[in-house]
């Protein structure tokens, strides 16, 4: 078995092209900030950036001018408020106009389901009575062939590349997740290429000892990046906590264009990669976020 392990710079360099439809998923949990920073650093342009919740990392990518269009269902700083980088782009066209294509969470989930299932659409009960279908012509309606009832449909979403953060993976990209799973599996199966970013590289035997935890099989994976703390200020359950203070602070940091630019210069473009980022945060800071120990217990796969 040949290893797919490479650096983040290699993975983003090789698998994210200008103009690509890109998804960095992760619902609060396992959001790969390190990948977003590398995309900014490599000055990728004209991306169609998809995600249920354009979080701080998409705010930064938009502010850095990487994004042409945003496909999403909830664009905010969770529990805090606005994403100011994104608002500047949408409301004022700074640094460039960003087109938006908007669904609800269920709509985006269904788009990824359809994409992963190689179906051109999925139907679901939502959107009626809402103004969303008026503003998004990709939302259509069909009738059930059995009951005649009306259901909304969304088109499949099949990104060019998915960057999926996980807790652990082997060198072929068999990737395991526990805690919140979001739509990591569906985003991966829906995408043409998958880059796995893992907190930890584990031997194949660790994966095989608990195959029910493998959410994404190596056979759909192009590259494996091993990068501890790659999700900060998001989190990786069992590795480090969510940096809630960072999310609260972000409102101040990003509120003005200048603050945002200063942050990007200092924390993204000014650093070579996640190793320097960890160093800059400092051992003490990281230590504070370190996970405590809550073992799952073991089950028996014997027969």
């Amino acid at each position, binding site marked *: 078995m040949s290893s797919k392990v490479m650096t983040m710079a290699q993975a983003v360099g090789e698998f994210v092209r200008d103009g690509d439809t890109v998804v960095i998923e992760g*619902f*609060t*949990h396992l959001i790969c900030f390190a990948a977003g920073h590398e995309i900014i650093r490599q000055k990728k342009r004209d991306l169609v950036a998809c995600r*249920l*919740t354009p979080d701080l990392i998409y705010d930064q990518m938009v502010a850095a001018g990487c994004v042409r269009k945003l496909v*999403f*269902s*909830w*664009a*905010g700083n*969770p*529990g*805090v408020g*606005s994403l100011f980088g*994104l*608002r500047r782009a*949408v*409301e004022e066209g700074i640094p460039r106009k960003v087109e938006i294509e*908007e*669904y*609800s*969470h*269920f709509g985006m*989930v*269904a788009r*990824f*389901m359809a994409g992963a299932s190689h179906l051109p659409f999925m139907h*679901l*009960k*939502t*959107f*009626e*009575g*809402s*103004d*969303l279908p008026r*503003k998004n012509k990709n939302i259509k309606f069909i009738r059930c062939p059995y009951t005649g*009832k*009306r259901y909304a449909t969304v088109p499949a979403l099949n990104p060019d590349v998915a960057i999926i953060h996980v807790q652990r993976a082997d060198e072929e990209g068999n990737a395991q997740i*526990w*805690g*919140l*799973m*979001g*739509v*990591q*599996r*569906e985003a991966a199966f829906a995408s043409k290429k998958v880059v796995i970013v893992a907190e930890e590289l584990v031997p194949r035997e660790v994966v095989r000892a608990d195959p029910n935890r493998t959410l994404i099989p190596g056979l759909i994976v192009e590259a494996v990046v091993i990068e501890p703390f790659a999700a900060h200020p998001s*989190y990786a*359950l069992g590795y480090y*906590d*969510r940096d*809630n203070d960072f*999310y*609260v602070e972000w409102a101040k940091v990003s509120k003005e264009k200048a603050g945002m630019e200063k942050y990007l210069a200092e924390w993204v473009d000014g650093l070579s990669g996640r190793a320097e980022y960890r160093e800059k945060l400092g051992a003490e800071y990281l230590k504070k976020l370190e996970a405590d120990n*809550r073992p799952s217990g073991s089950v028996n796969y014997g027969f």
Partner: protein
Amino acid sequence: MGFKMAEYTPSEMMVVRAARELKNREVVFVGIGLPNVACNLARRLHAPELVLIYESGAVGCVPDRLPLSIGDPCLATDSISVCSMVEVFNYYLQGGLIDIGFLGGAQVDRFGNINSTVIGDYDRPKVRLPGSGGACEIAIHAKKVIMVLKQSPKSFPERIDFITSPGFIDQVNSRRKFGFPGKGPSLIITDFGVYGFNKNTYEMILREMYPGVAVKDVKANIGWDVKVSRPPKTTVPPTDEELRIIRQDLDPGRIHLR
């Protein structure tokens, strides 16, 4: 203890009122912010077996800190089940298992329709808001919807700029035409009082006011000539116990209840 219990903020009154609405064993789809606090307050008081479900896929959560986000690690750890968002939306929400959905928003109209998308024109927004998230489908599927938001003429205008999540839609309750499984909005809890909906016109109607609030205060802070129950009840103020739990345990940093 350092606080004077008799005093409380409008946010605290809102949370307490919302918490009282929750019955033990009900299944609640929880949003961020005040609803989160309300559910956790109810869980520590009269509804210890309230089942909390978050759209992040955590079911039967027992958060040991107040989650800032609906994907906080404390929601997964020690929960009853964690599933993917495919399952939480298809099997739990669309599957009809949610008794109560909590929703907030920037604007609500008289029929309980919610705007959390945009102020101004969609294509040339004055303020771009976060958007639906799961709100649109929660509004459609939850058996009962409770809204929690602060009241002003701006947040309760005559017409909202965008319907993100349908309430009763209009005066004939078009929910029925669309065959929505959920019954629609049941309560709106603001910082002035509590509204229900008229069974015939599907319009908001003031049912309760908080101690010290007058009808004219309410009317001055809403965008139309709202109907009032005669007479509206006065809401029982927060008890010392309720305030103690909120201030000591749930939001000691006062992030949610400034």
